[in-house]
């Protein structure tokens, strides 16, 4: 069970500025464990979706090249303060995580 995502969503004019920090090791499968010398298995977020008040705003695919503890920033025109942002991710092991925030 992964650590919770952090979402910050604020209005800048009529554009919602959404910043998300996910908690995930984003292992590429190419890294060797320092102690055992064995390859650490690939474990990485593969899809991220976001919606505002239930309407999809973002649908994305990640490869292994996104940094550990992925950061994502996007902007949605027409959103309003008080709207609900929901972000979901899934990783290659099937693990999932969801978080929501209200646009401030």
């Amino acid at each position, binding site marked *: 069970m992964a*650590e919770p995502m*952090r979402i*910050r969503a604020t209005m800048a004019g009529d554009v919602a500025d959404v*910043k998300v*920090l996910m*908690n995930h090791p984003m292992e590429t499968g190419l890294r060797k464990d320092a102690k055992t010398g064995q390859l650490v298995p690939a474990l990485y977020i593969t899809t991220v979706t976001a919606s505002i008040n239930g309407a999809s705003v973002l649908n994305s695919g990640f490869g292994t090249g996104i*940094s*550990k*503890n992925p*950061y994502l920033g996007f902007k949605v025109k027409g959103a309003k303060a008080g709207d609900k942002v929901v972000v979901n991710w899934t990783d290659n092991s099937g693990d999932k995580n969801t978080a929501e925030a209200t646009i401030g």
Partner: protein
Amino acid sequence: MKQKIITNLLTGMVGVGIALGAATAHATPEADRQALTKYFTEKYPNIKVDDYVFGALAFDPDSMSQYKAIMEFPPYEADIDKGRKLWETPFKNGKTYADCLPNGGKQIAGNYPMFDDAKGKVVTLHDAINACRTANGEEAYKVSDMKTMGLLTAYMRTLSDGMLMNIKVEGPKATEAYEDGKKSFFSRAGQLNFACSSCHVQNAGNRLRSELISPAIGQAVHWPVFRGGDNLVTLQSRYEGCYKSVRAISAPQGGDKLNNLEYFHSSLSNGLPMKASVFRK
């Protein structure tokens, strides 16, 4: 501004107006700090002293902009939360760190290291934390253990963000410890035969291969750091790392040698604001 690429560091002691020990009867830590500040500001008149807290970043806008981008939403926030949990969880006897540290542990980091006259030695913030632990029936943390002392202070030190470094050196024994730290700072070590000053005084602002060198003033205020956004390093771990880099065997973390070095080194940053748990490369 072109940076000198140095492949052959010059030998020699510091020519910045600082002397060791009894050589100058009127030398004080404050005089040392001012002499060093003057040396740096004359060398780099366009860099504000306030920006020395950013170290090498103050000399390179490309690096600074990456720092700002990462600091906007640091990837290690969850680690700081782990530290917060360590800080807030009571000891077995029900007491907390806030109960035994001055001011509940808030806005105190800039006072450490301090010289404890009763103990006759320098006491670091980590020592104070361990004293709190043992006084409440808990085992002391190993100061070099990032999973315990590292994480705890990654949170706890943020309670002192904004506080100005405020190291006091009063009395002959304290002065002796300060001078011992100063001596370490200016003494060559390791197979590469570099002193801290070789890089961080004589070559601050220059490049050593790809690395921009930070000035000694402003270094001690911004610890621990998260290297690459996830590798937690405390100040004394960094001392150990530097000694390894010059291929020296480092004195142990938490021992008198490195505590005295931290005492001197922190004093150089007096008057500058603390900020814990920052990003570095």
